[in-house]
């Protein structure tokens, strides 16, 4: 017990001191974005999924160079980018963040680096929708918590469907699950600009400003960023980036007061369109999947690391809880019961969010890895505790009595007689729990970790393909769980052997219809 507390204290110490790189480090420009943020903002390169590309990546690189810093990337889910910034996971955030009043309340924004508008898209054959007004009574997809969503809500009477991943929206539009998609123009362009089934309709709607978010207190950094942005604009470097990504629009021309024709080819856009326009041959697809395997492999390692660490924590804490519930004085035992009830009664997703984003406000900070491992560990400890408790109670009281009658102390009886028997009873359910923990570890993808599930999202969003990667990731999960499934079977069989029911057949077959029980 003491050792365990010590261990936990140690873990906290290590993780709080080694938490993500902080603002003090002057040489780096630590920036946060979402690798699933989507094209053309930032996304894994389809040719090499380890590389993050996108026009915002180009901007950050140019910005860092201008500022004389080295860019360091921290990945986070898009909807958590601003909380993550205030949690000091990174110093600036750039990923299509719109300057909205709500955002301005919690962070400062640089001058906008890009201005655009919202674009309505419908199926090619559909002539019923020409403007936003026509969308009344129709199903319209848009990005969750975006300006576009607010606009749609203002119009009213629209069946709004919000998405995290743009690609899904246009897929749903193409196959009829939606009547229209309403997105920032860059997203629309890269999702459907080359799609023969989809057309853009209506005028430019609204005005969107993308800007770089900086923490309120980092005033100097904000000035530095603004200065660099102005310099990049004036030197034409920003324009060059937009040209290459085919994002130089009349709106931007007006904004930068630069009406000169483009000097560079939209090479990045062409690559993208080329990769997505033609239907891929089967062999090409397989080749692509093979390219993605190393990324999946690394993600699988992350999944295993988090799961195993969480399981070790769960087993240790679960044992402590179970022993407390069974042996401690009533009021301490009821504390353990309370813990178990609270943890089992609330979603693990909420617990992870709370640990990662909630606890820092009272000064407790964990790295994403430890937040995930501790979150899952604390959660599963509650289930483990109940398993151990039932394991302890599965051992007849007479075993306890005969150990005491032999002169053993309570602790000796527990250690030598009860626990060794209880362990045999609980190994199969514990193994099952581990398999389920392995799957629940997919939840750590929401706290910036690139585990298997996150990798699936990234790679699928890149390739616009949720089918093949889905099968690959499912197979990997199955393979990871397989050794534990086998182990559970093995221990169950061993247990059955000790119970010796050989004469009347294996107990597994008791309930199967056989001649004996007719």
């Amino acid at each position, binding site marked *: 017990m003491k050792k365990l507390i010590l261990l936990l204290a140690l873990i906290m110490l290590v993780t709080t001191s080694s938490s993500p790189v902080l603002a003090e480090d002057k040489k780096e420009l630590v920036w946060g974005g979402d690798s699933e943020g989507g094209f053309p903002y930032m996304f894994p390169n389809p040719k090499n999924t380890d590389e993050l590309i996108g026009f915002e990546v180009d901007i950050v690189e140019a910005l860092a160079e201008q500022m004389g810093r080295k860019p360091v990337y921290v990945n986070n889910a898009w909807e958590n980018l601003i909380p993550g910034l205030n949690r000091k996971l990174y110093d600036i955030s750039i990923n299509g963040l719109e300057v909205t009043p709500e955002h301005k309340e919690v962070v400062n924004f640089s001058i906008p680096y890009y201005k655009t508008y919202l674009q309505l898209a419908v199926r090619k054959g559909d002539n019923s929708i020409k403007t936003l007004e026509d969308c009344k009574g129709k199903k319209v997809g848009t990005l969750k918590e975006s300006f576009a969503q607010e606009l749609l809500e203002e119009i009213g009477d629209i069946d709004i469907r919000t998405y995290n991943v743009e690609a899904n929206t246009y897929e749903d539009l193409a196959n009829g699950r939606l009547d229209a998609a309403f997105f920032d123009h860059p997203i629309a362009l890269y999702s459907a600009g080359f799609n023969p089934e989809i057309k853009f309709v209506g005028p430019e709607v609204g005005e969107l400003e993308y800007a770089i978010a900086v923490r309120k207190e980092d005033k100097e950094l904000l000035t530095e960023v603004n200065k660099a942005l102005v310099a990049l604009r004036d030197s034409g470097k920003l324009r060059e980036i937009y040209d290459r990504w085919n994002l130089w629009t009349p709106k931007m021309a007006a904004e930068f007061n630069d009406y000169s024709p483009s000097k560079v080819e939209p090479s990045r856009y062409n690559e993208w369109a080329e990769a997505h326009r033609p239907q891929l041959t089967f062999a090409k697809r397989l080749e692509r999947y093979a390219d993605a395997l190393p990324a999946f492999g690394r993600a699988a390692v992350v999944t295993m690391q988090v799961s195993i660490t969480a399981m070790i924590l769960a087993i240790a804490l679960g044992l402590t809880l179970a022993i407390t519930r069974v042996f401690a004085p009533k009021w301490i035992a009821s504390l353990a019961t309370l813990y178990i009830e609270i943890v089992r009664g609330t979603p693990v997703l909420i617990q992870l969010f709370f640990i990662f984003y909630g606890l820092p406000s009272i000064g407790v900070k964990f790295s994403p890895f430890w937040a995930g491992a501790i979150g899952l560990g604390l959660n599963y400890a509650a289930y483990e505790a109940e398993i151990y408790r039932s394991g302890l109670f599965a051992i007849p009281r007479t075993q306890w009595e*005969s150990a005491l009658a032999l002169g053993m102390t309570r602790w000796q009886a527990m250690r030598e007689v009860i626990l060794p028997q209880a362990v045999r009873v609980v190994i199969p359910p514990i193994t099952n729990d581990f398999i389920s923990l392995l799957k629940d570890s997919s939840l750590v993808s929401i706290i910036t970790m690139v585990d298997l599930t996150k990798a699936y999202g990234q790679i699928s969003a890149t390739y616009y393909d949720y089918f093949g990667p889905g099968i690959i990731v499912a197979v990997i999960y199955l393979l990871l769980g397989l050794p534990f499934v086998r182990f559970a079977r093995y221990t169950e069989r061993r247990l059955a052997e000790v*119970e010796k029911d050989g004469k009347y057949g294996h107990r597994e077959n008791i309930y199967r219809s056989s001649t004996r029980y007719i």
Partner: protein
Amino acid sequence: MNINNKPLIVVENLCKGFEDGEVLKNVSFTIREGDLASIIGPSGCGKSTFLRCLNCLELLDSGSISIAGVTISRRPGQVPDEKMLDIAHEIRSEVGMVFQSYNLFPHKTIIENLMLAPMVVKKQPKEEAYELAINLLDKVGLKGFASKYPSTLSGGQSQRAAIARALAMNPRVMLYDEPTSALDPELVGEVLQVMKDLDSEGMTQIIVTHEMKFARDASDYIIFMDNGEIVEYDDGDILFTSPKSERTKAFLRHFVNTGVA
């Protein structure tokens, strides 16, 4: 029975109750070293509770128990403290107990069952514990079963192993709680024989039993309990042939009628 032997167990005014009422009411008695005493009586008369109080598996409510010089006593209403629990533990290490359901440790072999307590409690070296265990198994006729698991033994073999396991702690007293009740009739004899052998070696033993013939033949004296009290307490033959109490007579009549005694 050797009346010159000193009292080994002295029980005075032992009371024990559970939530649903009093089970033992002011029980007092004495057993001399080397005696074999049988406790008989109808079901629910408190004889098992009495035995469990003797080795402190149940802590007495009031009264005193003195075994081999170790005394545990409690005033009515006294809250048991750490010291009292220590004494209870000390008494348990002087007393061996055998249960109706054997209670061998299923995860250990027979020899490991015997070696466990000496090694854990007395810190005996493994070789010494093994030597002792194998001798005891030989004594109860189970030498060949040393490395078998309890689940492979018959009831009679299991009970003999359980007796050997208790003996491995070298107790001053052996208590048996209905040791033959769970056995098939043809296996009862082998267990009773072990107890007879121990008696001839001078072991002090108390047996709660329904085996009237054994009680009558082998016991130095018999205790008849009813309703939480010791009703009669006499030499086996005397108690069976001329019981003083009406309750004893009524109880024995039942056995005579069924032809057991």
